[in-house]
């Protein structure tokens, strides 16, 4: 019995020490990334390539998902609002749900699974194929040339993807509510315009997507760089990227929502 308790305590202690160790490594890693940022801004092509890699290549999944989320929101919202005789408020419901929550959160989750996993796999394979070492030996710092531009590319792409997701969602809500279910067009748009505040709703949504973008990209890059240089190591790193990013996005969303919308 005592042996089992002792084993359990050791296991927990080991996990805590490993967690703190990895957090410290990740912090140092991000410090290095930020300190090597300038090359990406001196050579905008490097940055644009990464915006393309993580942003443009994620567009299809973002557009389709945004549309379907909007369609579902329109259907569910209409059914609920109709009970209270306020179906015209559908535009407000769809827009607030998307701009404040679903846009940043769902697009961050999709970004983690599409672009985050790709970033981890790319970096992990570059490491296992010695491409990063080769770069170092050619006197080219991989942090400056590859990793920092990847970080800022993801950082810039994520808010844009969230905006596109929300726009497509609103369009989906419009299709269902106005075109199919017969909500008045003027009421749909005017109520939305009247109730969505630029600073309180839109800017806070953008801030969320920026924070999520930074978190997901940082996790993806660290996992890729830190992965053991084997097929199994890279595979585990990709899995960890998706899982850790999803948990981080949801936890950060709770914290940010607490500060932004409930006045904690």
């Amino acid at each position, binding site marked *: 019995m005592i042996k089992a308790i002792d084993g359990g305590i050791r296991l927990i202690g080991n996990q805590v020490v490993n967690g703190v160790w990895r957090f410290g490594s990740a912090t140092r890693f991000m410090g290095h990334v930020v300190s090597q940022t300038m090359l990406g801004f001196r050579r905008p092509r490097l940055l644009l390539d990464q915006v393309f890699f993580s942003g443009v290549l994620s567009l299809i999944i973002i557009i389709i998902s945004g549309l379907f989320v909007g369609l579902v929101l329109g259907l569910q919202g209409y059914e609920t609002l109709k009970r209270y005789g306020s179906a015209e408020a559908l535009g407000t419901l769809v827009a607030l749900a998307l701009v404040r929550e679903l846009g940043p959160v769902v697009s961050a989750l999709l970004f983690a699974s599409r672009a985050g996993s790709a970033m981890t796999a790319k970096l992990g394979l570059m490491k296992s194929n010695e491409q990063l*070492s080769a770069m170092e030996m*050619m*006197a*080219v*710092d991989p942090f400056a040339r590859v990793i920092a531009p990847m970080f800022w590319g993801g950082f810039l792409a994520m808010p844009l993807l969230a905006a596109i997701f929300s726009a497509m969602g609103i369009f989906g809500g419009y299709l269902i509510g106005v075109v199919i279910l017969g909500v008045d067009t003027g009421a749909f748009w005017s109520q939305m315009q009247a109730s969505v505040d630029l600073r309180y709703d839109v800017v806070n949504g953008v801030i969320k997507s920026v924070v999520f973008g930074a978190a997901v990209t940082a996790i993806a890059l660290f996992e890729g760089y830190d992965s053991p240089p084997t097929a199994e190591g890279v595979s585990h790193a990709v899995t960890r990227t998706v899982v850790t990013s999803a948990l981080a996005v949801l936890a950060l969303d709770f914290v940010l929502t607490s500060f932004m919308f409930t006045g904690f």
Partner: protein
Amino acid sequence: MQTENVVEVDNVRFGYGSRVILNGISMSFARGKVVAIMGGSGSGKTTVLRLIGGQLKPNAGRVQVMGKVVNQLGHDELYALRRRMGMLFQFGALFTDLSVFDNVAFPLREHSDLPDSMIRDLVLLKLNAVGLRGAHHLKPAELSGGMARRVALARAIALDPMLIMYDEPFTGLDPISVGVIANLIRKLNDALGATSILVSHDLHGSMPILDYAYIVSGGTIRAEGTPQEILNSEEPFVHQFVHGLPDGPVPYHYPSPGYAEDLGLGVT
């Protein structure tokens, strides 16, 4: 070896935790020579290259390259020194998203402001030297192992380095490709007036082009000398290594309890 030494490794110790990889080794690499570091798998050969390139730092001792102590250099000084080095990795380490041309052009574009036309001429010159000018448009995935190694060699010499390091350049190649790569190493070294350090366990491919060789095992140097001196060495490990004997100082069996004990025989 009377000429000036481009690289000096002086009493270097290196290990991971309690696991010792190099135990106080000293080597020198003279200008213009092709020198090999040979030994079995896991003997620390590649570690020596990484110490010379500054990718690892020794626990003790000194690594000096072109008059600078590598393990005391800061980030910018180390990167400046690396511009005068070239390294060929075991499997080429080509950038898989770039074409052959762009791989060779990579160091030129990163370290110079040369116009595109001049970069094109230089890249084609380097590719021609390794016989692959006609393959400049291919992607690394379209190359054979030997071709990939030659492209990586062209990339390693793109900046006309003073020191070229080769990490197992013959691994996984057919005999013709081994001969091609070996000849290129010798010819490029002589043409550039560089110094080459060749890490390999391939005696057949390496010996004909070497000026000098070190044989390492267990973190120490077991023998050094000209290829002929190495081939004639009576040192037990070197003898086993050179003649490819299955048993000797390097045992055939991994340490284990008695066979009968493992099979459960004779135990009451």
